[in-house]
């Protein structure tokens, strides 16, 4: 595992397991059967994390799984977002985050819909 993410990955996993923490997330996005393959990259390689909402629950898994979108960003950017030094939407609209859709919709469909989702995830991780 990328050493920069050592402390963050367990938090992400716990986020998936701790339903009480994600009530706001589910309230806003719980009706979606959507999933995201998050790819964090830097010189040491890629770390793949799957985040999704299935049957009204947030689930997080390490590794590569089928997803409706792929979100790719530098590891340092992800850490900056989690630490509150920037936010997902600013990074997205500055072109620092790549979003790819796998369900036939434009990437922007997911970009617009999920922009708020990641802000909430980052807030919870903080």
């Amino acid at each position, binding site marked *: 595992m990328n050493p920069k993410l050592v402390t963050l990955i367990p938090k992400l996993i716990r986020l998936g397991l701790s339903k009480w923490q994600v009530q706001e997330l589910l309230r*806003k996005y719980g*009706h*979606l059967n959507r999933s995201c393959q998050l790819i964090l990259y830097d010189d040491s390689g890629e770390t793949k994390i799957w985040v999704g909402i299935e049957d009204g629950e947030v689930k997080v898994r390490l590794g590569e799984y089928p997803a409706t979108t792929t979100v790719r960003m530098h590891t340092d950017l992800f850490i900056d977002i989690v630490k509150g030094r920037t*936010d997902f*939407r*600013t990074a*997205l*609209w*500055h*072109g620092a985050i790549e979003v790819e859709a796998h369900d036939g*919709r*434009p*990437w*922007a*469909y997911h*970009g*617009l*819909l999920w*922009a*708020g989702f990641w802000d909430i995830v980052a807030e919870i991780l903080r």
Partner: protein
Amino acid sequence: MGKTTTAVNLAAKLAEKFRVGFIDLDIYGPNAHLLLGLPEVPAVEQGEMLVPPAIDVGGRKMQFMSMAMFMPEGVGLAIKAEYVLDIIRTIIEFTRWDVDLIVVDMPPGSQDVVNYTLGLVAPRAEAILVTEPHRMSLSDCLRLYDILKLKEVELAAVVLNKYNLFQGAQEFERIIESVMKVPIVKVDWTPELQEKLMPDLYEELAEVVL
């Protein structure tokens, strides 16, 4: 030129009689929300389509989509041009509008965004060309008129904004009238237009487009 001012006031006027949607398609520099306000809730998904939230305009609900809803205040857009077109496609083709008509505030000029958007909405749409009656804007008007014909979007009217401010406005009006042969609506400038909605100033335009 006053495109946004015209669009928001026309939408507000039309909303007195119709269920109106509003799209601020100036992806790089959305400003319509400064007069219309922003929705208090985000766009949500229903039936695999985005559902635009509503704003309150003069006591009436108006469905509204703008990049201002999705971008933090003061953040600029620095994404690839094709991504911008993707945003437009999302707003037009993947958004469920439950309205009688939609007013679209287009970005300036005859750039890619305008061409692409006209291609998406033709032939359902009618265009209103908003300009100021002075020499510098004449060639822009003629270029845009040419693009409208190319994309087979009917021109419904021309708005001559700030008509009271320009000498030679009548000559400009005569040229536009002879070339485009559509109703011309003259709107005089008043400083209050920068501060608040004044839909009654656009009553004539509303009647013309309907």
